[in-house]
């Protein structure tokens, strides 16, 4: 019950709807109990031959009223409950997404997107479900059992005791078996998804399988997996299928006892026929909830985990928080790194080690070096993606970076990441994502400068072509050019190309570099690249190795140094095919 704290706000806000639903639920149960009593009464009156037309008529009216009342109450209850559920589901999701969007980049390295996805959809669903449908289900079941039992006892205590003896068995069977069955079903799901993945691989890799003539081997693998599924599934189904017959057997026996002992009581004049009928109808209403109770108790336990998973995200706090009086910034003169050291959260490995660098407004910087030398990590510092470990070692215009608003810092930078993330919307919308009020760059111009114009001709609907998961698949180069256009349109003081020209050919690269000089005149460009031709023209080039700068200078200076840069340059000049 402690878990419900997470939705306390909701219950407090809508307590009257919860209360009303509860009242309606009790009303429904009351109607259910009243009906058998009237029928029993009628039967008794007929049996005694004492019934008059008007008595029958009034009983008829009473019955009809009860049935209609119950009808209306039920509709009201399910609408109220449904609305409570949907509203809660809706609000949890909004809170969830709001908090997700607040998190630092770091958060997404700890939690896998797929995992967060499940939490955002099925876990929030089950949380809302527990807090509305399930909790009322449980309350209704318990109340039904209690109220029905009371009515039955009022008719005859011993009859009640004898006839409900078999029923707790139902409850016990359910409570014992349910967790086992659920656990086994989870296993089934796991095996199924393993098999699904294997099958997926077989479909995707079909050419490879054929090319290596491994069809039989592949079939064996799939068959083994299917067999495992079969074994676990069979176990689950066998367990599950004992439920139905058991349930029926115990309810039947219970009815049998009621009639047998009831007949005895009638003959001893302790009970009337009508009462027995009432009793048996009540008993029929009693056994269903017995089974539901078992089900619902175990469902509650299962859903607890969803609660925890959602609450965990709702309570997450971002680590990078602006100071109360954080400064605004929209232009800069210098960005300075002094003896800057950085390691990723929860790791001890230093990626940047005692790093010194000054970035001056209007100058361009090239960053090269081997994979894993820390180039991207360096870029990430400028995007304010991680908490700064030593406040004074990274300053913008003389103040530590943490003095400024983090959104302002991000507005300062226009970034083209290594992986090209496109959203499932039109090309135009994807590019315009970068546009903000301060930007002076027009759509057409950005496209032209990113050398993306020629690609548009190949897209069926030009700028309106939907790309991304549900749309047209763009080639690696096209994605890069689109990303660049998106970054150019942002028109920020700093443009960062993080190995963003890797999938375009030499000519396109040269075009884009040339265009940058025009569109980014007097602005800062930072280019991370493997191909040295991309950075050749930069005002300063740094060569990184193991988180340190090992060479720095202009292209000419670095060539004269005859170090790593020179070596790479020569190899690449020769066309990359040269043997080492």
């Amino acid at each position, binding site marked *: 019950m402690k878990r419900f704290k997470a939705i306390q706000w909701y219950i407090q806000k809508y307590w009257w709807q919860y209360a009303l639903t509860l009242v309606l639920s009790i009303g429904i149960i009351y109607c259910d109990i009243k009906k058998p009593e009237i029928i029993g009464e009628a*039967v008794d009156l007929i049996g005694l031959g004492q019934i008059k037309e008007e008595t029958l008529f009034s009983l008829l009216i009473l019955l009809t009223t009860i049935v209609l009342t119950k*009808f209306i109450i039920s509709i009201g209850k399910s609408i109220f409950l449904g*609305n409570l559920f949907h509203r809660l589901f809706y609000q949890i999701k909004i809170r969830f997404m709001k908090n997700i969007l607040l998190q630092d980049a770091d958060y997404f390295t700890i939690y896998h997107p797929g995992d*967060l996805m499940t939490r955002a959809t099925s876990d929030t669903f089950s949380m809302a479900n527990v807090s509305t449908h399930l909790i009322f289900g449980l309350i209704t079941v318990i109340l039904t059992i209690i109220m029905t039992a009371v009515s039955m006892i009022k008719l005859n205590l011993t009859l009640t005791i004898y006839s409900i003896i078999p029923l707790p068995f139902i409850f016990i069977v359910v409570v014992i078996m349910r967790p086992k069955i659920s656990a086994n079903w989870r296993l089934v799901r796991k095996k199924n998804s393993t098999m699904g993945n294997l099958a997926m691989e077989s479909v995707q890799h079909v050419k490879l399988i*054929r090319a290596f003539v491994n069809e039989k081997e592949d079939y064996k693998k799939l068959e083994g997996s299917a067999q495992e599924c079969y074994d676990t599934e069979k176990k689950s189904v*066998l367990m599950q299928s004992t439920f139905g017959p058991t349930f029926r057997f115990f309810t039947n026996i219970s009815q049998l006892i009621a009639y047998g002992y009831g007949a005895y009581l009638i003959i001893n004049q302790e009970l009337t026929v009508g009462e027995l009928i009432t009793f048996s109808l009540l008993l029929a209403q009693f056994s269903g909830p017995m089974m539901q109770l078992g089900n619902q108790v175990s469902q509650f336990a299962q859903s607890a985990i969803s609660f925890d998973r959602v609450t965990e995200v709702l309570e997450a706090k971002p680590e990078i928080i602006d100071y109360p009086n954080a400064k605004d910034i929209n232009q800069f003169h210098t960005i300075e790194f002094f003896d800057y050291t950085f390691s990723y959260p929860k790791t001890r490995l230093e990626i940047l080690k005692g790093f010194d660098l000054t970035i001056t407004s209007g100058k361009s910087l090239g960053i090269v070096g081997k994979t894993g030398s820390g180039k991207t990590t360096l870029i990430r510092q400028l995007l304010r993606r991680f908490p700064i470990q030593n406040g004074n070692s990274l300053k913008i215009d003389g103040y530590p970076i943490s003095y400024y608003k983090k959104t302002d810092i991000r507005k300062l930078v226009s970034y083209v990441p290594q992986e090209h993330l496109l959203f499932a919307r039109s090309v135009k919308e994807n590019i315009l994502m970068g546009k903000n009020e301060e930007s002076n760059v027009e759509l057409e111009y950005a496209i032209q400068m990113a050398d993306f114009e020629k690609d548009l001709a190949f897209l069926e609907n030009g700028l309106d072509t939907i790309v991304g998961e549900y749309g047209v698949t763009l080639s690696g180069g096209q994605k890069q050019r689109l990303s660049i256009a*998106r970054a150019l349109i942002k028109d920020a003081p700093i443009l960062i190309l993080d190995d963003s020209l890797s999938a375009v050919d030499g000519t396109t690269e040269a075009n884009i570099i040339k265009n940058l000089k025009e569109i980014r005149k007097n602005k800062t460009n930072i280019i991370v690249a493997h191909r040295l031709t991309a950075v050749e023209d930069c005002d300063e080039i740094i060569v990184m190795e193991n988180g340190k700068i090992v060479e720095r200078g202009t292209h000419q200076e670095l060539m004269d140094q005859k170090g790593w840069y020179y070596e790479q340059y020569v190899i690449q000049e020769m066309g990359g095919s040269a043997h*080492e």
Partner: protein
Amino acid sequence: MPEAKKIQTRNSFRGMGIKSKDIKGILPKILKRLFKEYGLAMTIILLCLVVSAVAGITGPIFLQRITDEVIEPTLKGQIALVEWQAKLTSLIVLMVCIYSICLLATTVQTQILARVGQRFLNKIRKSLFNKMQSLPISYFDSHPHGEVMSYYTNDVDAIRQFVTQSLIQFISTFLSLTFIICLMIHYSLWLTLLVFIGATLMLLVTKKVGGGSTKYFIQNQKTTAKVEGYIEEMMHGQKVVKVFCYEDESKLKFNELNDELCHAATKANQYGNTLMPILHNIGNVFFVLLAIVGCFLAINNVPNLGVLITNRNNQFVFIGMNTLTIGIIVAFLNMSRQFSQSIGQVSQQVAMVAMALAGAKRVFDFLDEKSEEDNGYVTLVYAIKDENGNIVESPTRTGIWAWKHPHSDGTLTYTELKGDIVLDHVDFGYVPEKIVLHDVSIYARPGQKIAFVGATGAGKTTITNLINRFYDIQDGKIRYDGININKIKKDDLRRSLGIVLQDTNLFTGTVMENIRYGRLDATDEEVYKAAKIANAYDFITRLPEGFNTMLTGDGANLSQGQRQLLSIARAAIADAPVMILDEATSSIDTRTEALVQKGTDQLMKGRTVFVIAHRLSTVQNSDAIMVLDHGRIIERGTHESLIEQKGVYYQLYTGAFELE
């Protein structure tokens, strides 16, 4: 169980759009299969179902008899104490026996069914897998992977639901309804009529209200998918969202979509939630009406009509059964409850059944697809040269292979596998009407390196797919060591061709297993050696668990270059005399690129090689370069001669023209 509920709504949603013609004839097909393969088990199941249905109606009979034969007469003092005690006891004992038999029957039935159902599914799955391995490659071109996958997941699941639940429920409901109706008619025609009117009304209302809500359910489903898609995108696109300060807009858009969903869901909910109470209460109203009408008839001593099957000629005869007794009314009340429950259960299952049948149809259609044909009879064997220099078959791997060619006159010839490949005026189209390769002729002598250069879609990969017979040519001939490749057994043909695909395609498994995939009987030593040839050995040993490192998700934990190296190692271990190399387009850093280059160079040594080149630097040392454009070879020659020609290749080389 929220998940189950979700699946159920999704299922019923899917079920709504299914038209009857989609599923026609599938039910008999499934039943035929079930009875053919599990005849005995199915018969037992049917028998058990009959037993439990019969047991189901003994309840009302018991009620009637105990009221009319024991309670009433005793109350009226018509029978003696001893007599009613004996009667009561015997009735109860009888009932306990019947219920026990019923329990036994249902248990037997469910247990057998669980086994049959699962075995049936297992068989379907296995035949699906088997089919997949034998379908022609062109099938996978014309069917998206997701579609093929859904046969294994959704459709098979739907069939499972159907066989293990819906089918049996239908049969048992049908049986018990039949028995109940018979008994009802037997007891009283008037009351039966009343029950029928009730049932008809119930069905009508379900149809009416259900039809109205479909619209909202579909809308609900659509918006749900939209919201989920949006969430997914936001989760994956976090970086871009942050960099472009897009948080607020994301929130806004999400709220908008979520609003829409909440609205649609509430609407669907209001519709859906009125349906159940209505259905439930119609049952109730008739229950009450039944009681009242029954009592009324009883009081007024209205002659009751019942039907009995007489022994004479098995004819239906109407018999006036005095008046309606209280016992009969009680039994009727009990039966009408069973009646409306059964109808409710069946109507809930209808959507699910439609979906299962549609799924079954897709599965069966898939199983009926035409398999890849193989009429090849020339096989590849290990060979050895005897002292005269003749090729002789050898039982063990010798490093020499030969084509074993049986002729129609019963003689056998052996031709040494050298790797001489000739394409002679080849035309090809994926569909006969649309030719994509025109008059392609290529001569590759053993040990030569042939390169294909050209824009995407020019037909480079297509040519290699013809050599390994992923597709069959329309016109012309392809000869392998002088043998028409149509005569060669496909497996053996492919075994003689090593291949490095552009998409690296790694499997879930260890690095070792992935390399060994090239030749399954390779020893660990051979794997190490292949890794060394491919220049992959160093990075593999530096992985956390070396060769035993698990690869998941197509090698997501490796870099592009590393995946490439593994794929080369895999081709290296196959050690085939002819290699097909489809160069990776995506970039890798220069050092890795040099490593990959070195690996491929090693691999090419002494083999006939077809290279699909994306970087011109790789092809300069080829024996022949084919420049392709729109399925035709427009230029051919060595690097030097092509440069001299100053044609397309020259333009490409000097950068005046782009490949991509």
